[in-house]
C-alpha cells in the first residue's frame, strides 16, 4: 500500500506503509537499531532541527500524566549543518526514506535550511513544524519560503491553530499536512513540586486530534493529504485515523513506552489497508501472521 506525496516537477516521497514516527520520538537517525526493524516503517521522521545549534532546556523535562506525559526538552540539536555532516552516511543506509523535521522559525532561516537540504540526497522530504501562536500571514510566509525546496514539503500544524492554518498553509505550498503537533499544557512536577509547562503527548490527546482530522478532511480539498498524529498507541488507534480521513499516520510517544508497537502498527495498517478494499474481514490481516502473500506481491514483502 504505497502512498506518493508528489510535487509537480520536483521529487516525490514514496511511503510503502502509511506509518512513520512523529518528529522528536525516534531520534535523528538509527537510535532505535536493534529494537525496531526500520524496513517495516513507511519513513523516518527526524527529531526537530534548526539552523543554529539549540541547547537543552533547563528544569523539568518530563512529567508523568494520566494516560500521557508532558515533555519539555528544549529540542537540543547541533544545528542543521553539523547534523547533516554527522548523520548523512547513516541516512544513506536507511531502508526507508528520511524526512527531516525543520523547526519553523523565520522565512529567512527556512530559506537557508532549504539551500542546505537541497544538496542532501539522503533526505527525501522536509517536514516543517510551525510555531504556536503563528498568525495566518506569518505561517504562510514561512511555508512559502520552505516550499522553495526541491523535495516534497510536509507541514505540521499547531494544535490550537489547526483549523485556521490548514487551508492557508496548503495554499502556500505544503504538499501534505501533519495534524497536529502536541498541544501545550501545564502540570505539576511531582519531583520539583512546581507547575511546569510543556507539550502533552499520549493516548489522552487522541480523541481531540481525531476529531480535528475528521473535520478538516471534510473541509479541505481532497488533493491535500492529511497525516494524522496524536496519541496513536495501537493498531486500532491508527485505523481510527485512517477511517477519519488520514492518508497516513505518525506515532508519537507510544514508541518510547513500547518500541515494538510502532512496527506493529505499521505492519497492521499496511496489511489492513491493502486488504480492506477487497472486503476482507478485519482479522484476516493480523500483525502476528507475518507478511502476507498480498504484500509480497506488491514488492514490500
Amino acid at each position, binding site marked *: 500500500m504505497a502512498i506518493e506525496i508528489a510535487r509537480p516537477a520536483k521529487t516525490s516521497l514514496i511511503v510503502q506503509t502509511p506509518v512513520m514516527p512523529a518528529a522528536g520520538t525516534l*531520534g535523528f537517525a538509527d537510535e*532505535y537499531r536493534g*529494537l525496531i526493524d526500520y524496513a517495516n516503517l513507511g519513513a523516518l521522521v527526524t527529531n526537530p532541527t534548526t539552523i543554529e545549534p539549540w541547547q*537543552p532546556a533547563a528544569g523539568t523535562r518530563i512529567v*508523568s500524566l494520566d*494516560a500521557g*506525559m508532558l515533555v519539555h526538552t528544549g*529540542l*537540543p540539536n547541533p544545528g542543521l549543518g553539523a547534523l547533516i555532516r554527522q548523520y548523512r552516511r547513516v541516512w544513506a543506509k536507511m531502508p526507508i526514506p528520511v524526512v527531516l523535521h525543520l523547526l519553523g522559525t523565520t522565512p529567512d532561516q527556512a530559506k537557508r535550511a532549504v539551500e542546505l537540504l537541497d544538496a542532501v540526497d539522503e533526505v527525501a522530504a522536509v517536514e516543517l513544524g510551525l510555531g504556536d501562536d503563528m498568525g495566518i500571514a506569518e505561517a504562510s510566509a514561512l511555508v512559502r519560503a520552505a516550499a522553495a525546496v526541491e523535495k516534497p514539503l510536509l507541514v505540521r500544524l499547531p494544535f490550537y491553530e489547526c483549523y485556521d492554518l490548514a487551508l492557508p498553509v496548503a495554499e502556500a505550498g505544503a504538499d501534505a499536512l501533519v495534524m497536529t503537533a502536541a498541544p501545550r499544557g501545564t502540570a505539576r512536577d511531582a519531583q520539583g513540586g512546581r507547575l511546569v509547562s510543556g507539550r502533552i503527548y499520549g493516548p489522552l490527546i487522541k480523541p481531540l486530534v481525531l476529531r480535528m482530522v475528521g473535520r478538516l478532511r471534510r473541509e479541505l480539498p481532497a488533493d491535500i493529504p492529511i497525516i494524522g498524529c496524536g496519541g496513536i498507541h495501537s493498531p486500532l488507534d491508527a485505523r481510527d485515523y485512517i477511517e477519519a480521513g488520514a492518508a497516513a499516520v505518525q506515532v508519537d510517544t507510544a514508541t518510547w513506552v513500547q518500541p515494538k508497537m510502532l512496527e506493529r502498527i505499521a505492519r497492521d495498517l499496511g496489511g489492513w489497508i491493502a486488504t480492506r478494499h477487497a472486503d476482507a474481514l478485519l482479522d484476516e490481516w493480523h500483525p502476528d501472521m507475518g507478511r502476507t502473500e498480498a504484500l509480497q506481491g506488491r514488492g514490500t514483502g
Partner: protein
Amino acid sequence: MRETQAIVERIKRVNRGYQRLELAVDRSLSSLLPGQALLTRRISKDYEAENWHPYLRDLWFPVDILASNMLVVERPAREQFVPGQLLSILGPIGKPLRFRQKLRNLLLLAYETPPTPLLLMLPHLLAQGTSLTMVTLGAARDYDCTHLPEEVEIIQASDDHNWHDMVMTLGWADQVFVLVGAGPEQTQFAEVMRLIRSRRNDVPANMIFGIFQRLLPCGVGACQACMLPVRGSAKLQCLDGPAFDLTQLRLA
C-alpha cells in the same frame, strides 16, 4: 539493549518500606553490571489489551543476580505485585560503573533517596577485599539497612549532614559515588560537593561520581530528555550515564 519480557516469580519484604522481586529474565540480562538498569513496565499477556497506565516506564536498578536468568530488584512496598506478573523490559540501560583499579576504600553517599542503585556492587567489591562505607543523608536515612551485608559500614548522618569521623571517611576514600533522587539533581549534587569540599582539600577529577536516576522516556538516546551539561559536551544519562564525574558536571 533489547526489549525482552520478564515474570515476577517471588516477592519478599526486606524492610518496612521495601520489597524485593525475583524476576525470571532473558539470559541476555545476566551480564548486567553495577550501574546498569532496566526500563520496565507491567504488561498483560494479551498485547491487544495493552493498558497505558502508568504511562512511563520505571527505571529499576537490580540489586542481585541469582542465576543467568534470575535478577532481584527492590521496589517500594506500597507498589502491589503478584507472582506471575508479566513485565516488558528495555535494557540494560546505561554504562557499568567504572571502579578505580586497586580500589581500597569506597565511599557511597545516598542523599534524599533509598540506596537501591548502589546495592548490586556490594557483594562483588566485598569479595575482592574493598572496604565499603555507606553514608545515608536526609531522607535516605529512612531506609532500613539491616538486611545489607554486615561488612558494609553504614553511617547515618545527622540532620545537618554531619557524622562522626567525617573528615576521615572523606579523606580515606579513593573513590566516591554520590546518589541523589530524581528532581533538581544538579542542586543536590552541588550541596553534596560543598559538604565534601568543606572537609577535604583536594577533589581531583575521576574520583567523585554522581549517579542520576531520572525518568528516562526512551532509554536509547532518541528523545534527549535526559541530556546533561557535562563539561565540553552534552551527555545522555541513558547512554553515557548513570554516573558522571562531578568535577566535570555543570552544577547549580
